């Protein structure tokens, strides 16, 4: 039988190295990608992953199973670490261009231009409150409940931020392919 995250955490906190390693291997990818997609920096993602699991070791006793999963607890830790690192000046609301044409055939255009990196930049250019829900729900496949637990906000807030974030992203991505321009105002964080 596969041990749950909560069981592994409990064993790890009581000194079982195997349980800690198993929990790390199961969850590190998600934490690393979350930090990477939030910051755009592999080095920061690496640091955040390490610090998040260290924090889990030190403060894991604060985990309350009734308030969410271990994964969302870890995302919550990682989120705080990410926000601490980011320059808040980079989070200013960006100008959104509404003058572009409709999105017909834009996906084909994107594919042709091999512009996945531009999608990444568009995500990175979102204000953090919208970026984190997009990263958690759309890129990490977290449920709304998990995201709400990680972000310490109601599920309704996650839904509304997700809708608004996707709309902003749609406008930004239209800007990517509109008139052959690339994204102009995406802060690249390294």
């Amino acid at each position: 039988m596969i041990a749950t995250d909560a069981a592994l955490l409990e064993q790890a906190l009581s000194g079982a190295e195997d349980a800690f390693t198993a929990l790390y291997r199961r969850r590190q990818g998600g934490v690393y990608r979350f930090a990477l997609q939030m910051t755009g920096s592999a080095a920061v993602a690496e640091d955040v992953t390490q610090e998040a699991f260290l924090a889990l070791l030190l403060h894991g006793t604060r985990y309350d199973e009734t308030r969410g999963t271990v994964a969302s607890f870890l995302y919550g830790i990682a989120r705080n670490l990410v926000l601490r690192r980011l320059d808040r000046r980079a989070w200013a609301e960006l100008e959104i261009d509404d003058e572009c044409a409709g999105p017909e055939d834009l996906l084909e255009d994107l594919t042709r231009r091999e512009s996945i990196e531009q999608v990444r930049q568009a995500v990175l250019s979102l204000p953090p409150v919208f970026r984190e829900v997009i990263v958690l729900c759309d890129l990490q496949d977290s449920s709304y409940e998990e995201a709400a637990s990680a972000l310490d906000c109601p599920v309704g807030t996650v839904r509304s931020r997700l809708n608004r974030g996707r709309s902003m992203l749609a406008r930004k991505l239209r800007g990517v392919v509109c008139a052959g321009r690339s994204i102009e105002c995406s802060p690249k964080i390294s």
Partner: protein
Amino acid sequence: MQSEDFVAAALRKLAEQDAGRQAPEAVEASLVQAFGRRRARKKLAPIALATLAAAAAITLFFARIQPQPKQIAPVPVTQPPVAVAAAPVPIPKATPKARRVKRQPREVVTQFFPLLDVAPPFERGELLRVTVPASTMRKVGLPVREERLADPVYADVLVGQEGLARAIRFVSYEQ
């Protein structure tokens, strides 16, 4: 294609591209090391406290046989007399420097660290000033540099009515 579908497809492509990305193996190695250190510290903590309590008890035993002088603060050293110059330079009768009163070093103490996990109710006690190696500070979790571990430091040990060393605090002097 609708705007929502377009965004969903774009995000799906990004998610697919990132799906295999993971933290480098060095992160796991580093965390496993940290885990081992933490486990070792947890195992050693009760032993360290017991050792500290025993050391404090032994120190107290000797401290009672050979009572320490009450005042162990560094005694201010009087300045050697200043040679009077032979040249006929008028010397002011009393300079402000000569009148200045030497300040006693200020005593700075840490909080008390308990030495007993479970102690009988405290009724009365005695505070004894002793000298212990700086390594004792590390045993209660205070930071001490490696090269200073053997240095003597002042400590106040609180001894309860039953004669047990209950708590310790560390003392330093600030000029």
